[in-house]
């Protein structure tokens, strides 16, 4: 005989402001099989959990229904409390009175009725719950880090230094990411390359890290602790084992007029190239779309000059398969290009550049060797205008969110400009100066007070070219919104930070969720900031939202900590909510007819053939058998099974029907 306890939570006022919790508890007490029913202000609190535990012992409960929030957060909490009190944790169910009731309805009698119905359904279900035992699975103690920017580098090094194997996959020919393109970094103005390059080299040299550059993720299968990842190693047309990085091929390549991606189009590179001098690995790749040999079948100069015989024109993409236990997504971000802005000329003016291009102009290794010279004619701009919030915080025409890093890097740009062009004037149009961070506000003050940056609070309505000058038309909202016109030599747009190219595709490969801006979503905005909703897959850096370097590095170390925790277990515990084929007494053995429709639809290849043999070894029957290590409990097999022989544990047909019956037959 079932003995069910019902626990109604007020969730502070989240539920009780709309639902009459005492009334629901009272009604539930009258349901058949319910022996104990109470309401309490915070059921998830320690005293609340103690209430549940004590009631289990006192009333000898066989099932518990906690009527509170969504099971997403607190089902594990209450199942743990039940287990501690000696009840099988899978005898505990949650009725969602918050998201499914109080938050979406007005306070009235109908809402109370709905709450009572929700509790009734779960009471009927829990009566049919079986005691289940968790499944143990092994852990592959190798982590996959996707993306080799500063976040990926930090995560990989931390995990490797904890003694675990790491596989790093980077899409570009070199690791380093956006940080390797920056000149100096705020708020200390230390050189970006100088602090990053040693860490890049560390990645290459760490015996625990296997680095694949010019490679992308092809597919990911499996689950936490046991992922199988296919990596596409794009053909570099170079035998990496032979190449010694002498660079002769890149200097001799006759086809040198290709836009240089690393310099954001402000310089040219050969068709066989190393993206930048400090690249890791220092091995060139051939850009097949530009290479004369691939286009015309003639040239092969690089092959002739290569002393190491490392050029391989016929090299093909290679797909390798690796088992990993955890995945860190560190794929970074991108920025809107100047062609996004109609009011600033759709990118047609050469001297309107974006912030990343300015970084290259200011960088000692950049196309102008660190001199600030405008792209159109190489003149040193004497008047320069920075436009903050170009596209950010602009729900009408851009994106609604704040890109976060622009206030700081624009202040840095103004400082760098003044350090390099002493007689120049820097104007900054801004909405607000958001300098929240250690030493950040001091840094913007420095730009204003020491380096004489002219901050103008207002937006720029348009920029047009006239007689070689860029006329910047804006408003000064602190001076009565009067129009300001500046005849500038160069304009730098602090364009909005956006999700990286291919983020959506990668999210789909990994089965992790992403937001409307294609940034990856964390599992909980406050309490699980580096986890995704998929167990074993973590996030760090600007692939989640625009982040500066310290934040990206901190998140990456957080991910490394999480993954090290995961790898500290020799095996993992999985929820036993998987499909099972029913078993009956001989001579039937099972209602399964052996049609194996289920096998053809199972997305996880979890269904095998089981042979029932008699004592003499003669085959009596073939049945479907579901491998509990592989089954993910998706339920597709249940839907196609013609003989209704498959059930999902914890969500059996009889449990589901009992819930529906509880609604209909009352």
């Amino acid at each position, binding site marked *: 005989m079932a003995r069910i306890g019902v626990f109604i939570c007020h969730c502070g006022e989240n539920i009780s402001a709309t639902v009459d919790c005492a009334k629901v508890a009272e009604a539930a007490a009258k349901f058949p099989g319910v022996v104990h029913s109470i309401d309490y202000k915070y059921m998830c609190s320690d005293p609340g959990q103690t209430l549940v535990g004590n009631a289990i012992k006192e009333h000898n409960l066989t099932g518990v229904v906690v009527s509170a929030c969504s099971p997403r957060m607190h089902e594990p909490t209450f199942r743990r409390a039940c287990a501690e009190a000696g009840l099988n944790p899978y005898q505990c169910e949650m009725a969602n009175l918050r998201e499914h009731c109080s938050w979406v309805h007005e306070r009235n009698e109908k809402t109370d009725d709905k709450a009572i119905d929700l509790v009734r359904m779960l009471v009927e279900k829990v009566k049919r719950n079986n005691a289940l035992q968790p499944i143990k699975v092994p852990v592959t103690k190798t982590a996959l880090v996707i993306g080799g920017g500063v976040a990926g580098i930090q995560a990989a090094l931390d995990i490797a230094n904890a003694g675990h194997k790491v596989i790093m996959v980077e899409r570009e020919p070199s690791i380093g990411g956006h940080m390797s393109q920056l000149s100096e970094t705020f708020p200390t103005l230390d050189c970006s390359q100088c602090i990053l390059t040693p860490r890049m080299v560390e990645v290459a040299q760490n015996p625990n890290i296997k680095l694949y550059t010019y490679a992308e993720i092809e597919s990911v299968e499996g689950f936490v602790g046991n992922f199988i990842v296919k990596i596409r190693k794009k053909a570099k047309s170079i035998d990496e084992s032979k190449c010694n990085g002498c660079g002769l091929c890149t200097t001799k390549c006759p086809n040198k007029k290709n836009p240089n991606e690393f310099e954001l189009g402000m310089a040219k590179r050969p068709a066989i190239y190393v993206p930048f001098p400090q690249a890791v690995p220092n091995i060139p790749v051939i850009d097949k779309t530009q290479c004369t040999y691939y286009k015309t079948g003639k040239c092969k100069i690089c092959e002739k000059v290569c002393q190491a015989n490392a050029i391989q024109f016929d090299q093909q993409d290679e797909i390798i398969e690796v088992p990993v236990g955890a995945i860190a997504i560190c794929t970074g971000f991108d920025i809107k290009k100047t062609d996004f802005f*109609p*009011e600033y*000329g*759709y990118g*047609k003016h050469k001297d309107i550049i974006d912030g990343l291009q300015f970084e290259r102009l200011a960088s000692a290794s950049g196309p102008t060797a660190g001199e600030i010279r405008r792209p159109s004619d190489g003149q040193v701009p004497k008047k320069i205008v920075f436009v903050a919030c170009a596209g950010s915080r602009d729900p009408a025409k851009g994106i609604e969110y704040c890109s976060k890093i622009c206030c700081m890097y624009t202040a840095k740009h103004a400082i760098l400009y003044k350090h390099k062009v002493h007689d120049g004037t820097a104007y900054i149009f801004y909405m607000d100066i958001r300098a929240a961070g250690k030493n950040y506000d001091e840094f913007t003050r420095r730009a204003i007070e020491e380096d004489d940056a002219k901050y103008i609070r207002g937006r720029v309505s*348009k920029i*047009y*070219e*006239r007689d070689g000058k860029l*006329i910047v038309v804006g408003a000064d909202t602190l001076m009565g919104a009067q129009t300001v016109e500046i005849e500038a030599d160069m304009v730098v747009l602090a364009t909005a930070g956006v999700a990286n190219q291919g983020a959506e595709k990668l999210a789909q490969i990994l089965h992790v969720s992403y937001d409307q801006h294609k940034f990856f979503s964390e599992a909980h905005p406050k309490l699980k900031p580096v986890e995704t909703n998929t167990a074993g897959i973590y996030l760090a850096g600007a692939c989640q939202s625009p982040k500066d370097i310290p934040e990206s590095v901190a998140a990456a170390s957080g991910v490394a900590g999480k993954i090290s925790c995961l790898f500290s277990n020799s095996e993992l515990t999985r929820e036993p909510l998987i499909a099972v084929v029913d078993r009956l007494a001989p001579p039937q053995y099972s209602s399964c007819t052996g049609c194996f429709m289920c096998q053809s639809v199972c997305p996880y290849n979890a269904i095998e053939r089981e042979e029932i043999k008699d004592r003499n070894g003669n085959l009596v029957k073939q049945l479907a058998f579901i491998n509990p290590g592989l089954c993910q409990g998706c339920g597709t097999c249940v839907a196609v099974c013609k003989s209704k022989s498959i059930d999902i544990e914890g969500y059996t047909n009889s449990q589901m029907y009992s819930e529906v019956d509880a609604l209909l037959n009352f």
Partner: protein
Amino acid sequence: MKLGFYPGCSLEGASREYNESVMAIAEEMGIELVSIPDWNCCGATAAHNMDKELSLSLPARNLALAEEAGLTELVVPCAACYSRFCATQHELKHDENLHKKINGIIEKEYKGNLRILNVIQFIEEFIIDKLEDKMKFEINKKVACYYGCLLVRPNKVLNFDRTEDPQTMDAVMKKLGADSIDWAFKTECCGAGFSVSFTETVGRLSGQIIEDAVHRGAEAMIVACPMCHSNLDMRRPEIDKYNKKKSDMPIIYITQAIGLALGIDRKKLGLQRHFVPVKLNDFKPYTKKTEVENPQKMEVE
């Protein structure tokens, strides 16, 4: 072919030449423009500043009358009328209660099925494909296409062209063989309805527009709005005073430009009605077989 036509007050008054040129090119292309019977004021700038229901009822009555007359397309050359008509259609489409209320006020059933076309849409849809067969001249001049505000804003309502840097008129002018320049004041304010009350402001705003176009070598400015035309043309003394220099760049309607390319008599296009004389001539005869080449830059006489 028969299309609905709403002239509004401007086309019957101060901008008769706009009306004349629209009619002239329509006739040349074999299109009959049928005025809405018993049409009334669109409300223009006054009504929507005073009374929302009035500002919707005035265009709604015209639209309902057009529907009653069995028209499916309505050509509205005046940019202000076009804006009011589109705004009304948009508002009533998205607010059922308001729609019912306005129908009650105008005592007519406005269904909302009419397609409202501004003059550029009219040209794009019914004129441009036939130009090659009928063109006699190339408008081999440097021109600045000026769109103003009402033709392209608000984009959500009109869904026409790019708000910040519109291109449709430029495309038409290029088709006519003109060199349409890239310039900075395509959509800047001309001063609009302040023509009478704040003439000096209009002189300043329109002055900046004229100055930039002249500075970039435009020989004529192409417009599609009576208000813009009157400010840029009639207020030239105030404009010249603001710019401290005289300019004789004529302002012509896009329909007049098409008329010139078609070889229609200048009087029939109303070119003599402008305050700034339209001296443009010496057009290059057009021959169909070749692609339109880059127009040669010829001197204004």
